[in-house]
């Protein structure tokens, strides 16, 4: 587990360093994510397996990552509570903000999913969302 945590932190560090040095418009952790994915794929192509096998591509790394992703929502709470500092502007422009946030988010979701849906229809995914009769998650 300590090694797994070290891997995540190291890739975040390298990502952040690259962002600073190259003045990239993308945050360090996101660059780190792309780098780690590339490293995992490179490692797996050499060992010719799809499963986590040895060295840094370990079961510990995937279980730590699963735990972190499972509580991803919690990690947004500290920044989210920062909304309290923006109350005056939010209230002064309440209607345009509410309509634009709802409308634009909804449109963005629908357009992205619709285009993706249409463009992948000839090759359906093996995994579909089970129909639970309106009850989701």
């Amino acid at each position, binding site marked *: 587990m300590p090694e797994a945590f070290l891997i995540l932190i190291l890739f975040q560090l390298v990502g952040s360093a690259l962002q600073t040095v190259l003045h990239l418009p993308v945050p360090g952790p996101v660059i780190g994510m792309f780098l780690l994915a590339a490293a995992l794929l490179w490692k797996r192509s050499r060992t010719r397996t799809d499963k986590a096998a040895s060295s840094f591509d370990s079961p510990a790394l995937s279980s730590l990552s699963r735990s*972190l992703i499972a509580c991803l929502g919690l990690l947004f709470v500290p920044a989210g*509570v920062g909304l309290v500092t923006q109350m005056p502007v939010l209230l002064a422009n309440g209607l345009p903000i509410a309509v634009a946030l709802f409308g634009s*988010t909804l449109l*963005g979701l629908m357009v992205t999913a619709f*285009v993706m849906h249409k463009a992948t229809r000839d090759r359906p995914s093996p995994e579909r*969302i089970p129909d639970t009769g309106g009850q989701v998650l």
Partner: protein
Amino acid sequence: MQSLSHTLHQIYARFLPEPNMETLFWLSVTLAVFALGVRLQIRLGRAPWANPVLFAIAFVALGLLVTETPYATYFQSVKIINFLLGPATVALAIPLADSIRLVTRSLPAMTLALLAGSITSVVSGVLLVLLLGGSHDVALSMAPKAVTTPIAIAITTQIGGIPALTAAFAILGGIIAAMIGETTLRRLGITDWRAHGLAAGIAGSGIAAAQVAQRDPVGAAFAALGIGLNGLVTAIIVPLILYFLPG
């Protein structure tokens, strides 16, 4: 109400004099309220509208108001939670690497969907604010709101919006996408995790991605890609689109 909040503040100040006790207190409150929110969501048939992030933010914000605690003090207490956001973002590489075959197979479709979704988000956000009489500052701050918060702040600084406002919009937009995304897309007959994941990553960044990632690893992989690629595309198209904006 004023005297009640004053009394509560006095009780709070008397029982929590040590700074590190205050830190532990707000850390506990945040964890407990989020855990309660998750239980509540499960109790409500796992309804996406019962979003635990929104529940926790509303409850903690109310707590800060009642105890008259400044946001800076609170943030200092929960810094450790905020810190984990970095490693958790890097961790999205694992579902991404695990589903790479599926991702490369739908690369052309993804490129199309990414461009369409990014442009729609930016243009509709800016236009809706201006049409409803919102200020120019608010419109500019709305432009990059679909992007993950750190990228959104970088973009808004570049175009002259208000960074703190953009952060607020990014978080609120993410919560909205997490709350209504799955139900809306299901109603349109879209039941493919690739489409759900990509849409969550592009329209709702991290918070909506968190909702999808809990449900399915393929959805998590496409959401991770959506967050990263949308950041790149939006950083390029926002200045281009605003160039044509009057005013």
